[in-house]
């Protein structure tokens, strides 16, 4: 009888194992499909940039790389794109908010894969990489420069390179040294005093600066990660080997990510973003002015003279899909911010549009508790995580790190 009881106990254990196997067994077909959809192998080539006919010109990319690192492209001579977009740190700065000449209101975004974005900036206030690249140049807290000074600088420092790519430089000898529609009062007055054709000549050189920088940034593809090697093995029906193999914790985290944690609702596709804007109830950073996110970005991108429909864009109006089909309902987009790509996310705290959340643990706590938004409507429904679940999710996110083990 004693033996029988022991055997019965073993039998019960087998039964329990069978039950738990329903949760931890082989990946289902649905799970495999979701994993494949996140893999870098699902990322197509860099999409065309119809507004920038130099987008794929290697000479423009090379010129853009030089401009990207050139501190001469600032009002103070001390700030380049790389000041905040540091190539050693995934082209970001690790700070809550970017600091050029002064501190800005938003977290610096990494650049790998930015050319795949439909919208640029956290609020999508630019519709192309080249229009984006122009914006910090004239922001007084970033490069703190002005339009005519930039055009004159190009003529002075890069005339040959510029003309090889973009054609003859306009005569800028009559242009004021410092003038811009966005600058100081004097700069704005001097800009208004310029002849329209002179303003357009400066605008063209200015736009070309953006087009060259964008051509360089288009070469920054997201690097392959451990997750991608894992996904590739899965897709090939092979057992992931070497560092492509996931630990139990990482696999558990992946399953949460594509399953119960609902992460996939926004962080989907091979860049782990849906290229859209969501209010997730992230509280405002203290001391900053009111920030309504996409609700403001909608009008800003429409009025941007360098948008896809503007006169310095090389696109036909039909090609401007982002603007043509843009969701214009600002009320629904209050405090909505762009879903960031999660590639490399573990290596670049702090998080959110103004660096409000210091760690991934705290990000998961935020999505778990799902606080109400200070304004607008949060889309987040809280998810209860076990301690193990939190650890697992973070372990999985680390497999998206390009420098992951």
């Amino acid at each position: 009888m004693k033996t029988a009881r022991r055997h019965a106990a073993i039998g019960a254990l087998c039964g329990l194992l069978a039950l738990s196997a329903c949760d931890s067994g082989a990946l289902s077909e649905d799970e495999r499909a979701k994993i494949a959809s996140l893999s870098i192998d699902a990322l197509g080539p860099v999409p065309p940039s119809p507004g920038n006919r130099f987008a794929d010109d290697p000479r423009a990319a090379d010129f853009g790389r030089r401009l990207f690192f050139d501190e001469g492209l600032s009002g103070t001579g001390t700030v380049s794109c790389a000041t905040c977009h540091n190539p050693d740190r995934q082209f970001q700065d690790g700070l809550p908010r970017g600091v050029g000449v002064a501190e800005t209101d938003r977290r610096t975004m990494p650049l790998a894969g930015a050319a795949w974005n439909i919208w640029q900036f956290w609020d999508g206030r630019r519709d192309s990489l080249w229009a984006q690249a122009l914006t910090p140049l004239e922001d007084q807290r970033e490069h703190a420069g002005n339009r005519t000074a930039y055009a004159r600088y190009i003529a002075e420092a890069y005339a040959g390179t510029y003309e090889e790519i973009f054609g003859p430089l306009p005569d800028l000898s009559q242009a004021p040294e410092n003038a811009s529609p966005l600058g100081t009062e004097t700069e704005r007055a001097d800009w208004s005093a310029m002849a329209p054709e002179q303003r357009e000549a400066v605008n063209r050189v200015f736009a070309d600066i953006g087009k060259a920088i964008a051509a360089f940034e288009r070469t920054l593809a997201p690097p392959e990660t451990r997750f991608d090697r894992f996904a590739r093995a899965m897709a090939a029906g092979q057992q992931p080997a070497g560092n492509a193999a996931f630990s139990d914790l990482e696999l558990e985290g992946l399953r949460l990510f594509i399953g119960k944690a609902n992460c996939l609702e926004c962080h989907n596709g091979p860049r782990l973003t849906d290229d859209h804007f969501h209010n997730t109830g992230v509280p405002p950073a203290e001391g900053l002015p009111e920030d309504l996110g996409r609700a403001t970005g909608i009008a800003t991108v429409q009025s941007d003279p360098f948008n896809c429909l503007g006169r310095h864009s090389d696109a036909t109006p039909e090609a401007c899909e982002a603007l043509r089909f843009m969701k214009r309902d600002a009320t629904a987009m209050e405090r909505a911010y762009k879903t960031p790509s999660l590639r490399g996310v573990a290596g670049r705290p702090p998080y959110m549009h103004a660096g409000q959340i210091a760690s991934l643990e705290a990000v998961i706590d935020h999505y778990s508790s799902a606080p109400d938004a200070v304004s607008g409507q949060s889309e987040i429904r809280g998810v209860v995580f076990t301690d193990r679940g939190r650890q697992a999710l973070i372990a999985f996110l680390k497999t998206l790190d390009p420098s992951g083990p």
Partner: protein
Amino acid sequence: MPPQRVNGTRRFMLAGLGLLAAAIAIYAAYRLFTPPAPEIDIAYNTVSRDGLYQVMFETDAQPVPVNETHEWVVTVTTPDGAPVTDASIAVDGGMPAHGHGLPTEPQAAENLGEGRYRVEGMRFNMGGHWEIRIGISADPGLDEAVFNLDL
């Protein structure tokens, strides 16, 4: 081999099988009492709410893609199959479970004739259940067709 041992092995197997069966039964019962997922009528061909129109959509992208801006061709006929050639089409939609709309504002770009209309700017930014509402205004009246998509 002593008979007692044979007996023990058999008893072990029986006990194991019995408990496994019980476990499976419990699991089956659990599944049985879990409420089923709500039934969603997924069809690319439907009748508008008030029955004024038969509405169908087609898309080159199959299956309907996530995160890819694409076009639909919407075909509108009367219930007896006559093409409705002069309709105004408006497209809207969203995810009822998440309380948000489409990420884009699709537009009826072209009347292709024979009751066919090209709609541009369709885009879905996540998998799951989407509801697409197609408003139709033509001689028979104003009506709306609703498509449920499970992406």
